[in-house]
């Protein structure tokens, strides 16, 4: 029993080595995981669905390999959770929406398939803001997820369930999706390592689309090394996604220990000075950069004024693409359908109005308006051009620096209900993360401090060049090692 509780805190590498060394089996890991979930899930509600049958079958497969003396895959026996917008046969994929509450996946998401092929155990599907619209996981049709650090607070969002599950040690790693910060912001709010890879690095096939030109799948973990291991597993070209690149995939763990000596680290000054960025967040970010400097990095500062328009561009491009991507939820081939439609248009209109929650309706309306006749140039066209300027600004910054550093979120986790009635202040949660999605850049949030007043985690965002996740993770690993924080929350 005590051995089982201990398993919950292990790293991916420790689990694989433990199984390979026959200290415990993959089956033991599964049972310990669900036992831990039984204790903590009622207070947190990270999951929409648990998948013990799938997990036990995957564990049995690993244990058979051990018995046969076969080499174990890199994530053998590692408990993993999936955001509930990723298809996996044998599970429901609801996107935390009423419109998909009964949807059974008829096929697999590529990134999920790759994660499981690397030996990970599918523990369950995680709660999220409906269709990933939100920054608090309050916009779920199935109830809010609570932050393991303070159950009265949000875990961030939209991948709040995936973040909370890792923070509370209910799984070792999880997958989220990030369109404007939906991995990194909940990562910061739950004290986890949370990464958005370069756009095109990880296949989007099988993840229910929010904004196709911005979405990217990435991992949550409790260490940079585990994040690198998951990235190793899910990266690479996929011929079922036309936006997936053929860039070579390095072993992202290989350079984690190389340190930061000589690396050029740029602190984005004007973001720190942004109104709404809490003093403790600013201080933690500056402290992180000073720490990197003490480790031998060459530190400088830079302003990215164009990125301040990122939020505006994002709230046109995101909803515009989303309004189109969500048209398919029409009650004909799947999803909620009203019981007594008088005709097809009535079926569409009432099924969709009943099936979508308020934030989803808001975004669909916003996006439809922005694309409608007469407004395209003023909104979508302008946003796409602004996007060009933001990308150019980053390109120029990366001529001076190898990585850039910003806060991840302007504040620590806020109270449940605090921003629910104010969409605009909620949207501001992603002000530091959004520019990366617009420019397609990779970013990782790692915990860098705990608030002195609340004890809540604060995250720092490290931004890499296109397809240079390796350098970005190397900086993150150096900082993680130097800070050596205990990030075990009270509810874990």
């Amino acid at each position, binding site marked *: 029993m005590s051995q089982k509780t201990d398993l919950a805190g292990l790293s991916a590498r420790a689990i694989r080595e433990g199984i390979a060394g026959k200290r415990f089996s993959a089956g033991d890991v599964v049972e310990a995981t669900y036992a831990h979930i039984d204790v903590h899930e009622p207070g947190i509600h990270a999951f929409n669905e648990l998948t013990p049958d799938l997990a036990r079958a995957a564990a049995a497969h690993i244990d058979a390999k051990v018995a046969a003396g076969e080499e174990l895959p890199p994530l053998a026996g590692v408990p993993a959770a999936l955001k509930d917008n990723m298809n996996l046969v044998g599970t429901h994929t609801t996107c935390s929406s009423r419109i998909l509450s009964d949807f059974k996946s008829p*096929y697999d998401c590529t990134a999920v398939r790759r994660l499981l092929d690397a030996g990970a155990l599918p523990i369950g599907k995680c709660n999220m803001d409906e269709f990933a619209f939100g920054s608090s996981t309050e916009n779920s049709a199935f109830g809010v997820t609570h932050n393991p650090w303070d159950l009265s607070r949000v875990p961030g969002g939209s991948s709040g369930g995936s973040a909370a599950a890792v923070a509370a040690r209910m799984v070792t790693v999880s997958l989220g999706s990030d369109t404007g910060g939906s991995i990194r912001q909940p990562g910061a709010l739950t004290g986890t390592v949370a990464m958005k890879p370069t756009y095109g690095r990880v296949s989007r*096939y099988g993840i229910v689309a929010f904004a196709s030109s911005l979405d990217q799948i990435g991992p949550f973990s409790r260490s940079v090394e585990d994040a690198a291991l998951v990235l190793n597993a899910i990266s690479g070209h996929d011929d079922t996604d036309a936006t997936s690149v053929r860039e070579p995939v390095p072993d992202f763990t290989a350079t984690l220990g190389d340190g930061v000596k000589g690396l050029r680290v740029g602190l984005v000054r004007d973001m720190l000075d942004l109104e709404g960025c809490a003093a403790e967040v600013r201080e933690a970010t500056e402290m992180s950069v000073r720490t990197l400097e003490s480790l031998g990095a060459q530190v400088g500062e830079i302003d990215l004024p164009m990125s301040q328009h990122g939020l505006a561009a994002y709230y046109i491009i995101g909803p515009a*693409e989303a309004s*189109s991507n969500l*048209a398919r939820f029409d009650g*004909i081939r799947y999803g909620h359908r009203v019981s007594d439609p008088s005709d097809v248009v009535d079926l569409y209109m009432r099924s969709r109005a009943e099936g979508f929650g308020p934030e989803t309706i808001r975004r669909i309306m916003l996006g439809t308006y922005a694309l409608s006749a007469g407004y*395209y140039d003023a909104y979508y066209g302008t946003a796409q051009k602004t996007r060009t300027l933001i990308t150019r600004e980053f390109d120029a910054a990366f001529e001076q620096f190898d990585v850039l550093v910003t806060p991840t979120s302007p504040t620590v986790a806020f109270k449940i209900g605090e921003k629910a009635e104010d969409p605009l202040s909620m949207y501001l949660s992603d002000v530091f993360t959004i520019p990366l999605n617009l420019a397609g850049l990779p970013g990782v949030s790692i915990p860098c401090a705990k608030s002195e007043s609340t004890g809540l985690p604060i995250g720092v965002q490290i931004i890499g060049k296109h397809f240079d996740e390796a350098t970005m993770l190397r900086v993150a690993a150096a900082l993680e090692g130097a800070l050596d924080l205990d990030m075990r929350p009270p509810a874990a």
Partner: protein
Amino acid sequence: MAKDRLAGVLERYEAVIGLEIHTELTSLNSKMFCGCPVAFGGEPNTRVCPVCLGMPGALPVPNEAAVEATVLAGLALDCEIAPFSQFHRKQYFYPDMPKDYQISQYDLPFCGLGHLDIEVDGEGAKQRVDLDGGPYATRIGVTRIHLEEDTGKMVHVGGSEGRIAGADHSLVDFNRAGTPLMELVSEPDIRTPEEARRFAQKLRLIMLNLGVSDCSMEEGSMRVDGNVSIRLRGETELGTKTEIKNMNSFKALHDALAFEIVRQADVLDEGGRIVQETRHWDVTAKRTSALRSKEEAHDYRYFPEPDMVPFEFSAGWIDAIRARLPELPDARRERFMRDFGLSSADARTLSEDVEFAAFFEEAVALAGTPLAKPIANWMLGDFSAYLNAGTVALSDAKVTPAMLAELVQVIDAGTISGKQAKQVFTEMAETGDAPGAIIEIRGMKQVSDTGAIEAAVERVIIANPDEVASYRAGKTTLIGWFVGQVMREMRGQGNPSLVNEILVKKLG
């Protein structure tokens, strides 16, 4: 009725017609954006996958061969190939469209301006009253060619004749959804229903020659819509146009446009106004009627397809596609006229169908160029009649190019007569036996031995002194009678031209 009045209407009004022609790329293996097979019919929803069902999370990836086929078609019609092109989403809700948007192309299609030359003769030529009524050729501009995906199909249950009106509910089948669909838009350069028909027919021939589609109007793999307006002769402003749909054959295309031109003229003549609308051709009632549609202006909210990246074709890539262009019917026809001395009409008929043309050329290659004309005559005559009568596909015919070549050679050598040759052809087509074998078995060898013919002629002259006297007195028309007598004497096996020659010599 409309047809009779058309010529009169066109004397006062000029019709302005543009066509939109959708061609399914049926010769491809897989659909436009997924790996499902391209085929016709089948049990509902048996050729589907997450992509073409619009399942949540599925992503489209363009079929390379469909892009190439579209550029190939563009090159065949002298279109400009866009250096930068892109797919867009065209958004509207409809149950046969799985994603509730269609992936299509908007302002950046693969192919821009091009053209197609058509020839009009016969009855249709009189409809162009600005010309003198004789055969003419005219150039029709092609505005663009782009690529998109086809929709699924619906069966309407409970209504009459499967129409939507009156149906109780409908069944949706997505087997066709995602089939690669090429759309050509013509310039409004067409002036008569006959020109429209010629344009569509010629486009079909070109697509068949390119091998990109089976172009079946019956099965809907080629679908033609038309935009029509009319204006008084001499007027330069365009009139209000209507869009005509459901023209499921070339005849329907012609008849629907003819009806619509006359209808519009009647409206204008009575002082009315043309309403811009979509009209449906009813092939049974032979009339167009307005489709009921909700008063909701279309707002397709086009935007660049974010699941795909743009296309930039290099000059080298375009050249490689150009190198794949087969010889097209017009070029082949000119070559047949030049190399084989065929008439324009014969060369056209022989050159249109790629297989028919290949058959002809193979036979000519075996028999020798001097025999091209008789081969052409056989192919356009007895052979075509045989194929048409039995609706036999060329590929299923028992006659081979080698057999036809042998047949014209034996005729040329005088081994058999023309009359015998017809018999040989009929038997050859039925049995697949070579001409030599048939002639052997039937003992049809023609006698070209001058000695034997001279002997027979002598016998006929001796037996018919009165006729010989009449002939020699000037009644030379009797020569036919003498030929008949000699042939009877030789049981039909005499070489007719030799018989004739020897008779004239001996009688003279």
